[in-house]
């Protein structure tokens, strides 16, 4: 049995029903592969005695699972009401020009996927940008070049 399956089953044992480990297992698989290719869905399915189709149906429901490849880094800008009212559009534009891609796209070197997202729950500290899932708050267009430079190392 693979180390991955062992890890998933250890998670599953904590729940009254092993199916509850589906979301954690998909997250784990995505951390290993960078996204959820068919192979990753098969690994999750095998570990939990589910079908790959079931795992894909679940994964496709949630915004944080990637069923297509993404860049090494993920930049997500909130464009819901509170961020938009104080200028999230300008932050989006700054990322567009700094990265050279539109929201929903990945830089040609495969380094950064940039997307807009719904409310991240940081409305009082707008604009909120999640960089590899860590929140940057009170982001203004002037901060964008620095964030991109950080990612490009």
């Amino acid at each position, binding site marked *: 049995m693979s180390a991955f399956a062992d890890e998933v089953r250890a998670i599953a044992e*904590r*729940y*009254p*029903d092993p*199916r*509850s*480990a*589906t*979301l*954690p297992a*998909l*997250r784990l698989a995505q951390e290993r592969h960078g996204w959820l290719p068919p192979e990753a869905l098969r690994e999750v399915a095998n570990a*939990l005695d589910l079908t790959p189709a079931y795992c894909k*149906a*679940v994964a496709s*429901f*949630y*915004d*944080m*699972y*990637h*069923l*297509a*490849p*993404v*860049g090494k880094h993920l930049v997500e800008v909130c*464009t*819901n*009401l*509170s961020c*938009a*009212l*104080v200028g*999230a*559009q300008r932050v989006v*534009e700054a990322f567009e020009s700094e990265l050279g*891609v539109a*929201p*929903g*796209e*990945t830089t*040609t070197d*495969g380094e950064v*996927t940039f*997307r*807009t*997202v*719904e*409310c*991240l*729950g*940081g*409305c*009082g*500290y*707008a604009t909120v940008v*999640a960089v590899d*899932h*860590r*929140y940057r708050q009170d982001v203004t267009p002037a901060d964008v070049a620095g964030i991109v430079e950080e990612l490009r190392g």
Partner: protein
Amino acid sequence: MAELQVLLAGTDDHDLTKLDEYLAVGGYAGVGKARAMTPEELIDELQRATLRGRGGAGFPMGRKASLIDRSSPKPKYLVVNADESEPGAFKDREVMARVPHRLIEGCLISAHAIEAHEVFIFIRGEYLSEYEILQAAVDEARAAGLFGDVDILVHRGAGAYICGEETALLDALEGRRGQPRPRPPFPPVQGLYDAPTQINNVSTIATVPAIMEMGAEAFAKTGTESSPGSAIFSISGNIARPGNYELELGTPMRELIYDLAGGVPDGRELKAVIPGGSSVPALAPDEIDVPLDYDSLQKIGTFFGAASLIVVDDRCCIVQLALRSAKFYQHESCGKCTPCREGTRWMVQILERIEAGDAELSHIELLESIGSRILGRSLCALGDFAVYPTHSYITKWRNEFVAHIEQGGCPYGGASSLEGIVAPLDQHTHSPMAEVPA
């Protein structure tokens, strides 16, 4: 009335993410008190406190506990809804990041009331730092032997607004697509794994230790008679000092907006306040003299909701506001019920035409008519959440809708504060690597 620290008490002087500091301010004393009571006595105490659910519906938490079928041979579960996703809301996040032990203490007390030995905290997937803080606190409290015969499992979501709906949350926790279930049966009878389940919001459960500390009678005397206690209000948008303010329930909305949060900045005028997160009817400037409690807000045709105020100034085109909000609900509709799945999409299409100046006056009535046929016709309230605010925008700012149609375009001429705002694409139908060469 004004600031009353219950949830955030002690956070100014202590780092309450640490167990020893939480214990030093009297933390976890409520667990011992609760466990000295029988479950019946504890449920009576909670009922006397009239702690109303802070997640939005306002249902009394003690009454919910009394509905749990404790005679069932199945295990009983307590589930904490930490899926805070309502646009405008960021208060539960602060509770988890600053006073995780108060939430854990509330879980242990509430679990005793319903004789549950397993507690699940469902936290939205995006809250990574908050998850880490909460998980560390859970591990620390367990290692200190505070759990007794109860265990707490923190379960992370994966990005879906609908999982804040309690039965969708249960499905997500069971490893499925997070879609709402038909009711009845209600969760207290048949919830998680078909067993009796109590589901409460983070702020509700984190208030329970205060009831143990003060006693139900004293707690019920704070706030207003029908809405005792405090709530953390999130305030954001066009406001000078956005942030979280914990206030006694019944505090005037005007006091929060102007005295505490500094009013509308940049010399602008107040145009609208969406008082409970983006899903509730908006208020016009002449409606903000209202106490912040469940019944007072309902009396003027809106809802307490997630206690989250979005303040909008006069630079904002109300049609653009309605459109951006409708796109959110379309994006988050889970697709299970036709009125919500199709209706939210139609609402977006009509609002797009109005904003583009490509509509007729009859489209306003069409929008209202579609809304009235979404309301109350689905398994959960998500579709209603798209309709409530939209109807309020049409009713209270109808002249702006008419102006778009009569002028053949947005009267703001590109100068609206929301101009150019983009809503997220559905990443499952749009490949983010489309631009990458093979």
